[in-house]
């Protein structure tokens, strides 16, 4: 039996990966925001839905670059704080957490130490229509902590410890167990 919950029934959306978006301002100060409204779009591009009123938006426009990092339990408190406080109100919000960052070797944006997996992005374009506003980043490099690679050098989702934001309960949730194989489970219908 299906129950109608209305247009706001999904709150801030279904559970999605929590991300840290890292940028520099014009003084070289690191700013980080917490974002889960992000998806792969065209091949090799990430689309971030973030408002123009954000410090991150201003920084991306000025620097033309940003990083997107997965968040694991070791960074959960910091990532949560980045989602609570604006970089406009607290310009040293990153410094307050005690985290360190190094400049990406590929783009003008910071890589936050301790991140399991980081996408280094160059601003491709800012898309704006009457109903839609998004920052499109082209992936210039993917950088992973060695601990999240398997013995063949491939990324292992479980090893990243990546967290999801569950807006139904306002919780952070881990990824669970493998449930099946893509492009295999459905073969019985082919």
């Amino acid at each position, binding site marked *: 039996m299906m129950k109608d919950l209305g247009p706001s029934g999904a709150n801030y959306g279904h559970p999605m990966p929590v991300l840290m978006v890292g940028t520099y301002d014009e003084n070289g100060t690191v700013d980080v925001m917490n974002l889960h409204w992000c998806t792969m*779009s065209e091949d090799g591009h990430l689309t971030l839905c973030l408002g123009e009123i954000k410090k991150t938006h201003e920084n991306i426009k000025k620097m033309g670059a940003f990083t997107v990092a997965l968040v694991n339990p070791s960074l959960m408190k910091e990532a949560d704080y980045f989602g*609570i406080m604006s970089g406009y109100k607290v310009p040293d919000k990153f410094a307050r957490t005690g985290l360190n960052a190094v400049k990406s070797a590929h783009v003008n944006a910071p890589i936050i130490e301790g991140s399991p997996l980081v996408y280094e992005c160059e601003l491709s374009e800012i898309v704006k229509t009457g109903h839609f506003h998004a920052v499109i980043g082209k992936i210039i490099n993917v950088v992973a902590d060695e601990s999240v690679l398997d013995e063949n050098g491939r990324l292992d989702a479980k090893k990243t410890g990546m967290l999801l934001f569950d807006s139904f309960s306002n*919780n952070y949730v881990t990824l669970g*167990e493998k449930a099946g194989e*893509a492009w295999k489970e*459905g073969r019985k219908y082919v």
Partner: protein
Amino acid sequence: MMKNLGPNAFGYGYPAPVLMVGTYNDDGTVNVMNLHECTRTNAGHLACCIGPRSKTHENVEKRRAFTIALVNQNLIKEVDYFGTVTGYTNPDKFAKTGLKAEKSQFVNAPIIEGSPLVIECELIEVVYTNNFTTVLARIVNVAADESVLDNRGRIDSHKTGMLFFDAFSNSYIALGEKVGTAWSDGKKYL
């Protein structure tokens, strides 16, 4: 120690929820595609990066409506199949699975029986730029199977049994455990 994997390591992106996109064909039959490139926007809409050459895209442009459903273990074979073949070469792909659908009461699109959570959408616009295209939709209603609601009538993400597509290993993965609380764990830095 961080390791550079290059831009191609991006592949199909980091793990994201697997979704079924349901539309009607010209003759009223049902088409369903498998999608993980979808996010809520900061304005509260849904942005679905559906390939412009897909049958779903054609249907969405013609009907100006579609449904997005989370996928659980009971639907894994079917949704994997929906991601394996296209509705152009297999117009009866939905019928082949033996699944049933009924028309949404709110939009001109099908709700697939057995879906734990369905977002009923009305097309706002198809956004096209040089490096980007997305189907932008207004959420008209969220319909949940009663079994996924907690005792206060709220959606329980674990009860949905939702699955994620992990492009690192081409696997489907379940949701894991709660590890923290949003807008709470970061308060120590305030």
